[in-house]
């Protein structure tokens, strides 16, 4: 990585790498990349001060398409990797991204405990309600009656997991939903998520034009939450339950203190010296 931070205000392009995305034309994940780079440019984030950690899947390729430090890790383990990085380098801004299968199935347990732990991470769940990289199987967020998956021709018959509800129940302190058809709106949400001192969960509705072409109609159904952001978990639960999953905006924000391993003084919790001191008998 070129570690030089430009002297003039950075542009979104400064946060993109030279690697061309292999996402299908029409894929919402392109807009997530744009929203992330716009948010970072707005924040004038030094590239060497941020990292993007991802799992496995179409969406998880996003780390390679940015000029940040990145780690394209094991399936479902992006949050575990990110937590380790944040513990060792609390000065870094750590972003995490992945798909609905990576984050809620293979990595479901990590998601619950990342919410509960409330470390200062920003997690973008790029939700297209399908496993795309493996050619279109039902994921944890797929509707029970989706019949186009080859493994589930009669539908999975299993109710989808509601990501925002799960995040709220598990203790996330910032919960939002954006839509890739509105990358500027998603960028605004990401700015606030990155600035939030705790675990920020952003569900990005990201249509898959190849395996879920009907999702290209989402742009006709998406709308904003009115009003945005409550700090009352009961009100947040009511809003999430009353919604059809197509409302966007910041749903919930709480000032519950973030977990900072090692006391939160900015010191590297994972330094050899600190580990030795903790293990000393």
């Amino acid at each position, binding site marked *: 990585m070129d570690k030089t931070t430009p002297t003039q205000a950075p542009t979104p392009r400064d946060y993109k790498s030279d690697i061309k995305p292999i996402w299908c034309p029409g894929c*919402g994940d*392109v807009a997530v990349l*744009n929203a992330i780079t716009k948010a970072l440019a707005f924040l004038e984030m030094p590239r060497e001060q941020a990292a993007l950690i991802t799992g496995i899947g179409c969406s998880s390729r996003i780390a390679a398409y940015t000029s940040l430090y990145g780690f394209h890790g094991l399936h479902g383990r992006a949050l575990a990797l990110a937590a380790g990085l944040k513990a060792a380098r609390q000065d870094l801004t750590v972003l995490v991204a992945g798909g609905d299968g990576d984050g809620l199935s293979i990595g479901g347990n990590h998601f619950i405990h990342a919410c509960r732990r409330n470390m200062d991470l920003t997690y973008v769940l790029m939700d297209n309600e399908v496993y795309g990289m493996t050619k279109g199987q039902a994921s944890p967020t797929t509707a029970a009656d989706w019949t186009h998956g080859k493994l589930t021709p009669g539908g999975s018959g299993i109710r989808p997991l509601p990501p925002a509800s799960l995040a709220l129940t598990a203790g996330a302190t910032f919960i939002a939903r954006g839509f*890739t*058809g509105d990358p500027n*709106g998603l960028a605004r949400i990401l700015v606030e998520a990155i600035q939030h001192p705790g675990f920020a969960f952003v569900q990005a509705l990201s249509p898959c*034009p*190849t395996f879920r072409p009907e999702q290209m109609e989402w742009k006709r159904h998406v709308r904003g939450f009115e009003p945005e952001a409550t700090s009352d978990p009961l009100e947040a639960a009511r809003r999430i339950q009353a919604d059809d999953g197509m409302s966007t905006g910041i749903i919930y924000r709480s000032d519950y203190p973030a977990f900072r391993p090692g006391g939160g003084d900015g010191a590297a919790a994972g330094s050899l010296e600190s580990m030795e001191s903790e293990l000393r008998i």
Partner: protein
Amino acid sequence: MKLSAQMTDLDTFLAYSVALEEEAAERHDELADMMEVHNNPEVAETFRKLARYSRLHAREIRDRSQGAELPKIAPWDFGWETMEGPETADIGDMNYLMNTAQALHVAMGNEQRAHDFYSAISTESPDPEVRAVAAEFADEEQEHLALLEQWLSRVPQEGNETVFDPDPPNMPE
């Protein structure tokens, strides 16, 4: 209040114009990249050329501002009346099998929206200088539309029929 009526000074208008063109250029480059990796070099080259034109126009607008410090506006504060800038192609309209004629139709839609944006400002801005410059930009967009129509007339008109792909990405294995 309509966006066109909020263009009360030239610097703000130019900041919007630069953003409109730069965002369009960026999207065209993204589309060119995607078409290249999906082995559609002809359409990739079309989008690459469109990106160059948008960048050229953005540079001309910047030159026009004569070094003035244009206001910095957050992407979400532009308040575009479309989800993105009016000249930005909708990613959702793309398909890896699209042909040059279809790509040019998309581009013409973008230019038409940009023309309409400037045209509305040319009549609705309260500032006479902004109205005059917006009218000039609207004429330029009209010229771009005419050029795209000429370009379209020179390429094969395959229509909207589906191109056969012997190994589509959604083929079950």
